[in-house]
């Protein structure tokens, strides 16, 4: 009896999502009194990363190290996870609710004919059943669901379980079933030059989000400067209005038809705070709002607010943060 956690990698290195998924698995494994196995699929060099999964609480690591796992190929990855499931017969299978996890988890659930709870923020055991809490309607409601059968498949929202060390010497084993890339239905490669320097808005430590109050797309340089001052873990975000206006690309949109985010620190700059936006960022730990309208709904959700002209407040904020960072 055990729990299986999918440890995501990219380019031969573990992603933040891997340590978070393993942490969620550790918490649940302790509650259930069972073992936690991580499955790690990557290029031949990936075996070196497997020990790191022990640091976050994996008792065992099943490694698939093969060139077939360099890029995420849905069928090849689903085959390998199902092989791992057949090997250890887990009661619970955890994925990160990342781009990869959101694609892979439904495929594995379909193959296993198992229930899947997506994008969960909490997992617990109640009367022997796996129960999970998941935001729905873009975060406007939280739904608690219980699994009727086993295995229970879940994808865990980024930052719902912050990576926590629970070190042990993980037993590392090669996955016995080897992938057969010739059976892959799809060919995959990363688009050249598309990679952005900043983290994804859903996974960032800090989000600097802008809205219509910025007045035009060119003014985003102010937010870029603030994000640069805050440091490399900072992502840019945008309200739906500015994405619809074509000022920013959709992958930065926060809210019901964009991404739901829970960073430790969220700056809402010139964002009035429509219901669908608030639903998408209200689980941030600390929210700072800057808006010239003191009646803007965003101030009701914000921990700290400044009423004022964003074109005066933001450059000053950037300056103060730079000062602070240079003193650290």
């Amino acid at each position, binding site marked *: 009896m055990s729990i299986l956690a999918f440890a995501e990698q990219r380019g031969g290195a573990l992603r933040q999502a891997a340590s978070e998924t393993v942490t969620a698995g550790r918490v649940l494994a302790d509650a259930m009194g069972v073992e936690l196995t991580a499955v790690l699929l990557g290029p031949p060099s990936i075996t070196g990363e497997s020990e790191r999964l022990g640091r976050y609480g994996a008792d065992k690591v099943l490694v698939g190290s093969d060139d077939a796992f360099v890029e995420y190929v849905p069928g090849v990855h689903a085959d390998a996870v199902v092989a791992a499931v057949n090997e250890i017969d887990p009661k619970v299978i955890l994925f990160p609710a990342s781009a990869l996890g959101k694609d892979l988890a439904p495929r594995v659930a379909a193959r296993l004919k198992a229930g899947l709870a997506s994008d969960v923020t909490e997992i617990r055991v109640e009367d022997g059943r796996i129960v999970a809490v998941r935001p729905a309607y873009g975060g406007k409601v939280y739904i608690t669901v219980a699994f009727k059968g086993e295995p229970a498949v879940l994808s865990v929202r980024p930052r719902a379980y912050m990576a926590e060390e629970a070190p042990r010497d993980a037993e590392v084993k090669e996955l016995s079933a080897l992938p057969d890339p010739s059976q892959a239905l799809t060919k995959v490669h990363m688009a050249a030059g598309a990679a952005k320097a900043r983290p994804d808005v859903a996974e960032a430590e800090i989000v600097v989000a802008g809205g219509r109050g910025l007045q035009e797309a060119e003014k985003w340089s102010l937010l870029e400067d603030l994000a640069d001052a805050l440091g490399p873990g900072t992502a840019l975000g945008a309200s739906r209005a500015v994405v619809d206006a074509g000022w920013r690309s959709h992958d930065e949109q926060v809210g019901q038809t964009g991404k739901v985010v829970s960073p430790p620190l969220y700056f809402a700059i010139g964002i009035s705070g429509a*219901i669908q936006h608030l639903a998408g960022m209200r689980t941030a730990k600390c929210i700072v709002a800057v808006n010239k309208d003191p009646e803007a709904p965003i101030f009701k959700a914000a921990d700290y607010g400044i009423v004022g002209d964003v074109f005066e407040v933001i450059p000053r904020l950037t300056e103060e943060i730079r000062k602070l960072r240079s003193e650290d």
Partner: protein
Amino acid sequence: MNIIVCIKRVPDSEGRIAIGSDAASVDTQGVKFVLNPYDEIAVEEALKLKEAAGAGSVTVMTLGGDDSKETLRTALAMGADQAVLLKGKPSVDGLGTAEKLAEAIGGREYDLVLFGKQAIDDDNLQVPAMVAELLGVPSATVVVSLSVDGKSVKAEREVEGGHEIVEFGLPAVIAAQKGLNEPRYASLKGIMAAKKKPLEEVEVGDAESRLEVIQVMNPPERSAGEIVGEGADAVPELVRKLREEAKVL
């Protein structure tokens, strides 16, 4: 090119969501329902592909009750040729719904099945990939760019920090993300024509739910915050509070 677009009727994103008296459902009374915004993008893409191919048909399909006919008519008004209502209740998780859809799709001729990447009610993001698995065809989810050349498909998927390019052959399943296209509005002529287009009804029964909803709650409340001050002069105090009180800097 024969395209099937799977769509869903969902509450408008502008509205509030009230919790039912049983605390385990959503109260839909007085709620404005719309065609799921991502499905609008899928319908638009289907229409564009059919127009480019110069032949074929676009079928819109949904699993739901009689009230979903309005949603199917919305897609017909955009330009889809025919509609199929699979009468039954969708499942709590995605798999039951995917099983009903895959069964209906498998019995028809199709080159491409299009979905919106997620329904904005349950936010499951499960059904498109599951339908692809059940049909045994290649697929790409969260697609922001799509080109179909004869029988080969090239799609760009949104991933963290960039795009992934995926290539495969037809038949296939695609799930549309915002940015793929700008959905058209239904013209008055389209709305009138939609009333006469065929809408097939098939009793399929309720989808199997492998999850059960035990509670629906409001999101955790946020305690009222404070206005630190007005204008740029308030910035040093804000930074101090972020560092010393909130400890986030």
